[in-house]
Structure formats: C-alpha cells, structure tokens
C-alpha cells in the first residue's frame, strides 16, 4: 500500500487540475493547487488561506522578466510585500529544453545571485499550474486575497516593453492592487493584458 500512495496522490492532483481546467476570472475563487518548490518542499495554495498570495510567472531568460530582475524591480516588490505578510510564489512553467527551464539547484543559485526573495519558487515543468491559471506571459501576475478570491490577473505594470528605463514612469498594478485590497478598497485595475514572452509550455 505504501508504494501506491504517491501515485494515487498524483492521480488525485491531476484529476483536480483537469476538473477545474477552466478560465480563472477575477472575483472567482482561486483554484487550489499543489506543487513542489525549488527546495523540494510541497506547496499548496490552501495552506495560505488568510493571507494575500501573489503568483509570478517567471522565465529568467525572457527579456521582459530580465527587465524587472536586472533593474531590481521584482526583488524590491518581493521584499516590500513579503515584509507586509504577503506570500509570494514564483512559478516556472518552462518545459525541459525550453528557455527558462532550470533545475531546482540552478533556480536557488539564481535567487541568490539576483538577491531575490520570493516565499517559494514552484517548479512546474509539466505546465499544469500554468494551464490551471491560464498564465500567458512572463511575467504574468495574479493576486489572491485572504478569503481565497482572485483579485488581480494581468501585467506587472502599464508599460509593456522590455526597457528598464520605463519602470520609473510605470504604474505597478501589483503594488496598486495590494495597497487597495489591504486597505479594504476594491481593486481599480483588476484585470489587465499581461505582457512579455509567451510561457514556454510543453504543449
């Protein structure tokens, strides 16, 4: 029996993903997921109930992701918001052999080199978490409120370019949404067009 358990668990996860493989819309309950992070730890959205959760789709080779990491913008956001109790989950859905695919060790080295501090990085080489949320680009950002409702889906900011120089004059949608939601206000820009490279899915 013992040897059966992991595969049964996997089957259950796959079924859960298939059952909810529909669009996620702002205002709807954010679909639960489980995944393994770059430290080999199990991550599950359900365990973060009661907290704000940010999901950040990531591909370290993509020029749009590099805009926000090489400028330090993403790291500043991670530091600021995790400092205020937000859970920040970076997700890598690049399939093996595609741009942005990394091993857990490579990802941990990258985090250290870039001085990045997400709560965890979920390794999603099969793309099931990406498909569950309909993640289209890197970056593509989502925010889930403490009740488990999706309150933001879209771009990181309002300048869809790969130029670092554009960050200073940009409205950061993630910060704006978190600030509004934390002070009990509705999110003004709750869904925007995400911009960047396409997520490098296996299929």
């Amino acid at each position, binding site marked *: 029996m013992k040897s059966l358990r992991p595969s049964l668990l996997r089957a259950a996860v796959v079924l859960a993903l298939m059952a909810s493989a529909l*669009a*996620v*819309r*702002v205002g709807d309950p954010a679909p639960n997921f489980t995944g393994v992070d770059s430290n080999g730890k199990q991550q599950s959205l359900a365990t973060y109930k009661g907290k704000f959760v940010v999901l950040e789709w990531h591909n370290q*080779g*993509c*020029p*749009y992701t590099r805009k926000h990491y090489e400028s330090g913008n993403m790291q500043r956001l991670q530091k600021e918001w995790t400092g205020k109790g937000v859970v920040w989950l970076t997700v890598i859905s690049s399939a093996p052999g*595609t*741009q942005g695919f990394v091993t857990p060790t490579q990802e941990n080295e990258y985090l250290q080199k870039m001085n990045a501090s997400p709560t965890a990085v979920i390794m999603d080489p099969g793309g099931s978490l990406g*498909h569950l949320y*309909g993640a*289209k*680009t890197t970056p593509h950002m989502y925010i889930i409120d403490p009740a488990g409702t999706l309150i933001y*889906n*879209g771009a990181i900011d309002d300048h*869809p*370019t*790969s*130029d670092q120089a554009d960050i200073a004059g940009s409205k950061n949608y993630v910060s704006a949404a978190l600030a509004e939601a934390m002070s009990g206000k509705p999110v003004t820009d*709750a*869904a*925007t*067009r995400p*911009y*960047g*490279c*396409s*997520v*490098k*899915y296996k*299929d």
Partner: protein
Amino acid sequence: MAQQLSDHARVELLAREDAIVAGSDLRLGIHFVLDPGWHIYWTNPGDSGQPLVIQWQLPQGFHTDQIDWPRPERMQSTAQLADYGYHGEVLLPVTVRVPASLAAGTPAPIAADAKWLICREVCIPEHAQLHLELPVAQHAKANPNAAALFARTEELLPRPLPHGWKISAAAEKDDIVLSVVAGSPLKKVEFFPLEPNQIDNAAAERLHPTAAGVSLVLKKSDLLTKPVTVLRGVLVLSNGTAYRIEAPVRQPIK
C-alpha cells in the same frame, strides 16, 4: 545608410517615391525581411509580444500618421496561446505630411528610431536607427526599388466594408457573436481583434455560414471585467481581402 542587419532580420526604411514634394503626402515604410521561423507583431500582438514602435526625427513642419498595419496572421503556439503578427517579409507603411512651405533644394533628412520584438521560440528586443535622404523637388516619380512592394502592401491593408455589407455583434454569456451580412455565404473568415482583452485569442473561432454571409462565435477573454460595448477589429476573407470593422455590441437582456 537605409538598411540595417539585425541578428534575425534585414530592416530598411523605404520611400515609395524618389523625392519629397512640398504640400504632398510622402509614403514611407519600414521593410522587414525576417529570418526563417522568426516573427514580429501586429498592433495588437495577442497573448504575448510587442509591436513595432517608431520614433521619428523629421524636418520641421513634417508630421507622421500612425503605422498602417497590414492584416496579420494568427500564430498559435499552444492550445492556450495565440499571437498576431508577421512571418517572412512585411512592409509597415506610414504617411508623412509634408508642409506646403518647403522650398525645393532644402535638405530634408529623415530618421527613424525603430524598436521591435522578434521571436521564434525565444524573443529578442531589437532596434535600429534608420535614415533616408530624399531630394526636395517639384515632382516625384515612383521609386523603382520599392513601388511594387508598396503596391503589394496596400492590398494587405484593411479597407472599409463594401457598400451594402452589414455587421452586428451581440454579447452572450461567454461569447460575442459577430454577424456579417454580405449578400452571399462566406465560408471562411478570420477575425482579428484590435483591442486586447476582449476576445480569447487562442480559442477556436466557430464559424456558421449563413445564406447571406457568416456568423462568428468569439469566446470572451478571461480578462474582461466589464461588458464589451464596441468590437473593433479586422475581418479577413479567404481570398485575403481585409476589412476594418467596428460594431456596437448588443448586450443580453437580463
């Protein structure tokens, strides 16, 4: 030097005529010859990507219009992701208004700082500083090196709907139904939305030919937070003809 080689494309600033004429429109274009497998993007790039942006440096009194985007092609990378853009070769034309006061013989250097994203499996931001020097003259003749390319490109630009055609749109729960009345059945049409976030780019278009045209069922985008009141886009027929459409969207009765 009008032509530049980027890593994955040959890029050139071209003029349709061989001279600038005071008070006349000047037709320019940025010509891309892309390496095999690489693509650039339409004005609405779809689910990812970024369109060409041009910053012009023009003589005093010159003004440019927006890029006239030729009809795009649909590039579906997975069941969930689709982009709109161009493979192979494309000319992106722009009209420049030339002041009537321009004296013949005046030097009129034109420069374009062009930035674009080019992708195959990966995406690379590229840019080029393109220059063009044309004489200011009383009359202009067709530029023999570019006239045919400009003429071919004009055929690819969306035009107004033919006289007598009617278009309407109605919102349903998950879809927007676009109806085209053309006078005869249309078997194959493609719709390209001009606004991002209205239509699910990757969803298969559902076509229903009717006696007088066609109706298209377009899936609404997941990113919609309020009703689509106007649907703007480009309709491309099977023969490649492209039409600009703008249809107010009838909302469902609650």
